[in-house]
């Protein structure tokens, strides 16, 4: 599979998502990137709470 194919498949998976899920994908990846320094237990608690805040903001 070429890089181009790979990008197309990733793009397709993303495109098939609802607008709400698309927004959550971006938000969650940003949250995780900012929390990479946290240890597993702390991250599990903090990030899952933040995901809830994000999804509450998306699905009102």
């Amino acid at each position: 599979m070429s890089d181009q194919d790979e990008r197309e498949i990733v793009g397709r998976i993303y495109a098939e998502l609802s607008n709400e899920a698309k927004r959550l994908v971006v938000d969650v990846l940003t949250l995780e990137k900012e929390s990479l320094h946290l240890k597993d237990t702390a991250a599990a608690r903090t990030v899952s709470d933040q995901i809830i805040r994000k999804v509450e903001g998306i699905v009102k």
Partner: protein
Amino acid sequence: MKLLSIELENFRPYGGRHRLSFAQESGHNVTLVYGTNGGGKTTLLNAFTWALYGKLSSDVEQQERLINNRVWQDAPVGSQIEMSVEAEFEHEGRVYTARRHLMAEKQGPDQKLPKPQLTLRERDDKGFTRELRSAQGHIDKILPERLSRFFFVNGERIEQLVRKEAYAEIQHAIKTLLGLEQLERALKHLPLAANKLRHQLKSKGADGEQAGRLTGEIDAILKETEEKKQEKESLRTEVQHLKDEIDLLSARLKTLDGAKQLQQERERLEQERESVHASLRKLEDDRARVLAGSGYLAFLPELPQQIIAACDALREKGQLPAPLKRTFIEDLLTEGACICGTHLPKGSLERAALETWRARAGLAEVEAAWNQLRGNVATLEERRSTVLERLFDADRLIGEASDKERSLVEQLNEVSIELKKLPQEDINAIEVNRGKLIDRLSETSRRLGGIDEHLELLAAQKKQKEEQVDKLQVKDENNQRIQRRITVIRDTENALRQILELLSDSIRRRLDTRIRDLFKQASLKNYEPELTGDFQLEYWERVGGETMPAPKSTGENMLLSLSFVGAIAQECRDAATNTNPFFGGVGGEYPVVMDAVFGNLDDDYRRQIAKFLPEMTSQVVVLSSKAQADGVAEEALAQRIGKQYIITTHTTKSDLVDVTEKISVDGRDYPYQVVGSSFDGAEITEVTA
């Protein structure tokens, strides 16, 4: 990242300040640092990782004694002593200076040190300098610690990347490279968030008690799944470790007189057994497919004949179902009235039409139905015979393969017994130990299989319970909103899972291709390397038409490991021009700093590695003893060397004999070891023209 310089102040054996700047030109990209064994090379390698990440490798002794011993001893009690390492590097057009330092007050002979502080300064292309907040975060973005171990390398340990046990390290590196860590972590955190929302459903009174019970059960499943995954990872590592140990013992047996032939015979038998076992599995799979598709036919031996006999009887009685029965029409004609109420007097058109129907009714249809049924029943019998024939054939072949495998296992046992009978104690001990390891491997693999099954069960239970929660009566708007949020989280999780699988595998394949290209340039043997689907580095050789594991050697292991490092460096370089905006990841040129890379290899491999290193990446720092680099390696590197340094080791010990006190580099002598010195420690001198 291009290394510009490093400055050490009172760091470990280096008292005072010592600065090295590094070769950067593309044609002369190698900095060669000579140092005797135990003389400060490994410390210099560790200076980079300590400055950038605050870490020393596990083989560094007395890690708490960071400050140079002589400086500490000479300082009066109560005085302040400063220690630091400053690494200057360039990345994406900016120059960074990472400085980790500490100031300690001497209170006695023991070094009680405060936490070192890290500062990171950035100078942009216009020459403006500023100190960056979150210094560690910036460094981790430029070169994540998890990836740094492939660029700041202890040559004696890099070879271990070829061990089966190294798969986790390789897998982690690949994921870091592509920025997939955040994806992995998201997949842990999204289900937790979804279940926290399900708890809100309970509190809002949506089928209250049942929702509460189910969400509690899902929480427990998530917790158990995480525990089982960790247990699985640790068992997987143990399996690979045991395989490595068995490989080592097998290789050892091949070097011992008396055992060599038996071990070779065992390897031949093991390969044959693997091949027979694979055929056996295939035959069993084929048989299972036949049974699943047409197995029911085997259980119908009498039925076709019974069907034909029953139908014959019905046919004779004219009772086979047909669209229109003759007796039915005759009854209507006798009664003189149709079922629709029309009178059927003789000579009427209606009666004539019905008489025509009587002539046609039944016969042709019955015959057609009979022929169709007879044909189907006949095929049934034929299909049954074919299926039985295939099953009998499969049974026979499976039986033969099983016998063959059993015989091979017996022969393998005999080899083991023969080995144990050999008079040499070391052979016996190795064989007994090998047998124990195989038993442990078998038991650990069994447990691993059990965990896999358990994880599948947990996943199915979780899905079932989530569906149950979803089906709960959601009456009010608030609960409906919560369920929509859960659905969005679940869709996000599914999409990220698919993307993670896709990207992990595609980058593995890309690296595999790069490794093959690099190894082909470097290897002295006609071996084929592979980064396997299990993230293991292997190499194979072709014997006749077959591909089999190639005999492992330190030289080839080293070259394969270096090919992997080179492949990672290439992937980073290409990622800089082809970034993935979605996940980020790591991109850019990276240097390789390598200690003891020539090890105790023979001349051919030292030459080959010396030729290969400058090609691996844009900048290389080689730390080596003079003895290991001497001759072929120096010759091969000569054209690419841009800078050279000597680490001079001082020892207060004076009764040493046969010590290399001076080495000659580029026609000039430099002190290498100073025996009977006034201090123990090291100094760095640049080789000048």
